[in-house]
C-alpha cells in the first residue's frame, strides 16, 4: 500500500519548518561566505570585495592559530573528561541500592542552571583570596591567595573547560545510565556463570553494549566543545590576553568590538570548515565501530 498511501503531497508538511530553517539559518550561513571576501563592517551596506585578504590577515596575525588551538584544547578536554566522569558516575548510579533515585536527581541538578548563572557561581569558586578554592586550600595550610586560575595564562583555559564539564555531567550521565539499563540481565548472569569477574563483565559485556550511548555522547560533546562560547564570554571575556579566546569568542569580538565583519566572517568560514570536518570524521568513525561492536 506504500506508494498509494504515502503520496508526495506529504511534502507540504515540511514547508513551515523548512521556511524557518532556510530563511533564518541557511541563508545567513551563505551570507557569511559572501562577507568573508569583503571589507564589510557590519553596518554600512557599502563595501568592497577584497578577495582572500581577510583570510590572509587572520592567519598572518595569528588570530586563527590561537583561537583554533584554544578551541581544540577545550574540545579534547571536554570530550575526554565529561565522558570519563559521566561513565564512572553512571556505573555508580546503576547500582541496585536504596535512595538511588535521590542520587540520580542530585547528579542531574547542575544541568538545569542557565550558563550565565553557572558562570557567576564558578567565578566565585575561582576567585583569588576569598573564593571557594582559595579558602579551602588555605584551610589545609596551602597558599590559596596566590591561586588565580582564571587570571593566569597557563590555567584559564583549563579552568573554564572544567566549568563546562561540570555543567554537562548530568546530561551525559543520564544517557549512559539509559544505555546501561538496556544491558540484559541474563547476559550478565551468563557471564558470571562462565566465571567472569566484575571487571571482565564491565569490559566485555557492558562497554560493548554501551556503543550507541558512547557514540551519542561523544558526538554531542564534540559539537558542544567546538561551539565553546558561554564560559569564556561570561567568565574571562577571552582573557587574560587571548588565553581563552575560542573560535566563537574571537568571531564575536572581531565582529562586534572591532567592527570588522568581513574579517570575522573569514574566521567563521574557517571555523565552519573545521567543525564540519571534525564532526563528520568522528560520526563516520564512531558509526562504523558501533556496527561492528
Amino acid at each position, binding site marked *: 500500500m506504500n506508494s498509494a498511501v504515502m*503520496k508526495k503531497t506529504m511534502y507540504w508538511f515540511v514547508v513551515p519548518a523548512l521556511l524557518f530553517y532556510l530563511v533564518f539559518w541557511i541563508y545567513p*550561513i551563505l551570507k557569511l561566505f559572501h562577507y568573508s571576501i569583503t571589507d564589510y563592517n557590519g553596518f554600512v551596506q557599502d563595501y568592497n570585495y577584497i578577495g582572500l585578504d581577510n583570510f590572509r590577515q587572520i592567519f598572518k596575525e595569528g588570530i586563527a592559530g590561537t583561537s583554533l588551538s584554544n578551541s581544540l584544547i577545550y574540545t579534547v578536554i571536554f570530550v575526554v573528561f565529561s565522558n570519563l566522569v559521566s561513565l564512572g558516575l553512571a556505573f555508580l548510579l546503576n*547500582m541496585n*541500592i536504596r535512595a538511588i533515585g535521590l542520587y540520580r536527581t542530585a547528579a542531574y541538578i547542575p544541568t538545569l542552571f*542557565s550558563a550565565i548563572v553557572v558562570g557567576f557561581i564558578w567565578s566565585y569558586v575561582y576567585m583569588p583570596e*576569598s573564593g571557594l578554592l582559595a579558602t579551602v586550600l588555605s584551610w589545609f595550610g596551602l597558599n590559596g591567595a596566590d591561586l588565580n586560575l582564571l587570571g593566569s595564562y597557563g590555567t584559564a583555559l583549563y579552568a573554564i573547560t572544567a566549568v563546562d564539564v561540570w555543567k554537562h555531567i548530568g546530561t551525559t550521565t*543520564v544517557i549512559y545510565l*539509559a544505555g546501561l539499563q538496556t544491558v540484559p540481565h541474563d547476559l550478565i548472569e551468563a557471564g558470571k556463570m562462565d566465571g567472569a569477574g566484575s571487571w571482565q563483565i564491565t569490559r566485555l559485556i557492558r562497554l560493548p553494549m554501551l556503543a550507541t550511548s558512547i557514540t551519542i555522547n561523544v558526538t554531542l560533546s564534540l559539537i558542544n566543545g567546538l561551539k565553546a562560547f558561554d564560559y569564556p564570554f561570561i567568565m574571562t571575556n577571552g582573557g587574560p590576553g587571548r588565553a581563552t579566546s575560542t573560535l566563537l569568542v574571537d568571531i564575536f569580538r572581531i565582529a562586534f568590538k572591532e567592527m570588522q565583519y568581513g574579517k570575522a566572517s573569514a574566521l*567563521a568560514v574557517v*571555523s565552519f570548515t573545521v567543525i564540519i570536518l571534525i564532526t563528520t570524521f568522528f560520526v563516520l568513525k564512531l558509526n562504523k565501530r558501533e556496527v561492528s561492536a
Partner: protein
Amino acid sequence: MKSPAARTLVHIGISAILLLNLLPLIIALSSSFRTIKNMTNPLQLFSEFSLESYRAAFTKMHFLQALTNSLVLTVTSVIVVVVIASMAAYPIARLNNRLSKFLYLFFLSGLVVPSQMVIIPIVQTIQGLHIPSSQYTPILMFITCSIPFSSFLYSGFIKSSVPIEVEESALIDGAGLLRRFWQIVFPLLLPVTVSVIITQGVWIWNDYFFNMIFISKAAHSPLPLAMLGFMGDQTNPTAWNVLFAACFLCALPLLVIFAFLQKYFIGGLTVGSVKG
C-alpha cells in the same frame, strides 16, 4: 556488596562525590540566605536565614516581569516547534526516496553550526524582512534552532515505533492527510513530544544569547537576560549575597518544574537516543 558495612560505605562514597559536585551550588544557596552585609566566610553553611538578599535581588531584576517574559518566550516557541517539527518529520520518516533522505541530513547538519557565528547575517535578515526588533524577536530564532534536533527525534521515533498499519483504518474511512496526521499519528508521538518540550524548553528558558542580541529594554528582559545586570558583581565579595539570591531566583522556576516532573526530564533525554 551483601554486608551492611559495605553498603554503608557505598552510600558514603556516592554521597561524598555528589556533595562535592554540588558544593558550589550549596555554598551559593547558603550565602543567598545571608543578610546583605554579612561578608564573613561564606563556607559557614546556613549560619543565618534571612530573605533580605532575595528581596534586593527580586527588585533589582524585576523578577515578576522577567518571569512573565520568560514564560511568554518559552511557551510560544515550544508550541510552534512541536507543531512544525513533528509535521516536518512525518514525510521525512514515511517517504523513502532521495528527497526525504536529503531533507533528513539537511536538517540534521544545522546542529553543528553555532549561532554566535552567524548572528550578524541573522540580524540583517530579520531587519531586511522588516520584522521589528521587539521582545518577541528571539522567538523566531528559538524556533529555528530547535528544528534540527526536534525533527531528528520525531523522525527517528516515527520510523521505529509508529508502523504505517496504524493509519489503515483512517485510510479506509477516506480521511485526508491532515486528519490522519493530527488524529492518529501525532497522539502516538507523545513520548517524543514530552522529550522535545523538555530538552528545547530548558535551553530556550536558559538562553541569554539571542535575548541579549534582540532585546534592549529592561522591561522586556526574560530571567537570564536580567541576570546580565549583575555582571561584575561576581568579582565583588560585598555583592555576593544578592548575586547568589538572584541566581537562585533565576533557576527557581525550572527547579520547581523539575521537582514535579523529574521522571519526564530524565526519561525525556533518552527517547530516541538508545535503541538497545
